[in-house]
């Protein structure tokens, strides 16, 4: 029960005065309460837990994290790559 999962907001609406959203979880969609994230709009990604959106997924931060992962190991690869090593200094700088 404790798992929270990300989904994409398809549309927002109101039910009995409470902000709601239809959220798509990779093909399955569910109605989700937006009471704690009323500013969310269509196409935003949110983390949903027991029918409530508890936080937005920040696209910029997600991309930054992935970019950082991509940089791991790059230095090693350059150092051991024979082509780069032979090509001399110019080729080392990315």
């Amino acid at each position: 029960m404790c798992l929270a999962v990300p989904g994409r907001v398809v549309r927002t609406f109101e039910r009995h005065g409470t902000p709601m959203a239809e959220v798509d979880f990779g093909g399955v969609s569910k109605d989700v309460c937006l009471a704690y994230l009323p500013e969310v709009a269509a196409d935003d990604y949110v983390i949903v837990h027991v029918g409530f959106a508890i936080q937005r997924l920040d696209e910029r931060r997600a991309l930054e994290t992935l970019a950082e992962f991509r940089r791991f190991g790059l230095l090693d690869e350059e150092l051991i790559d024979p082509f780069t090593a032979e090509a001399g200094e110019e080729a080392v700088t990315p």
Partner: protein
Amino acid sequence: MRYLEEFRDPELAERLLKEIHAVTTRPWALMEVCGGQTHSIIRHGIDQLLPESIELIHGPGCPVCVTPLEIIDKALEIASRPEVIFCSFGDMLRVPGSRADLFQVKSTGGDIRVVYSPLDAVTLAVDNPDRQVVFFGIGFETTAPANAMAVYQARQLGLRNFSLLVSHVLVPPAMAAIMESPACRVQAFLAAGHVCSVMGTDEYPPLAERYRVPIVVTGFEPLDILEGVRQAVVQLEAGRHTVDNAYPRAVLAEGNPAARAMLHAVFEVTDRAWRGIGTIPRSGWRLSPDYREFDAELRFDVGGLRADESTACRSGEVLQGLIKPHECAAFGAECTPRHPLGATMVSSEGACAAYYLYRRLEPARAGAR
């Protein structure tokens, strides 16, 4: 799905693993706090890909598992009453009480409904004015905002037939209790990402300082967990102990202010018993005086129950990271997810069930390489 598949990318996992191997020079014991993380670690075999010298200790972060036996017994007692519709998340149904579980109560005529959200229970109360609807409100800080909203709505709607059986537990006091234990081997924490999505991170710097322990807020996908481990090891190797956020796409320092405000209106801090661990001071929530009329324990007189814990079950030691599930003699024999002796075998976020599900019948490292 965006931001899901990307964080499972095997090539990036490879890079992160290399980096972890490169920075690790000594043995370290890290605890992942959340059961969702335990599940992901065992499912993806992450513990077996890490350097041999890094041990992951599975923490107490499964609310199903730590809900105390007395509360389960109270749930069974309330759910047996003819006037009651008892609503619960599905994985509570198989949690063994002293004498039965909710499934058995259901099969002997109890009106027990599995709901997806606590708001479904509010709807049931509106639709059944002549019945008492009780929602089993368990969970960590992640789940509490949903349960708080259910009570808030019940009050807005003037419902007199809705109540909450509350057993909310809080993560930071449990981390402190683990560090206080003389048997504690934990040197760094991977903090529970979605708890922090709600609560933010400001409860953790005092813990990191007091126990000189690095705390890295960590997500749930394989890359998130590897990055949590990497940041924790980098701190350990450098002799630092600060709070880092390895899950910035879902965790802001301030958490979710609207949810926090609701939590503080509806709940107040109280001592709580944790199954298998014992009472931890100020480690849970109960309804605040303003909302106490919605407390199922007061509405139904369920005092005086005596709880009997199975003596074979070692879930207390599992929950504190003192043994791994397969070191329990009952594991996979008398105790399976179908017939669990202890709560850690019930939910897939419980360490025993995760080990069973992903066939960790051998000591974790054997046969993995």
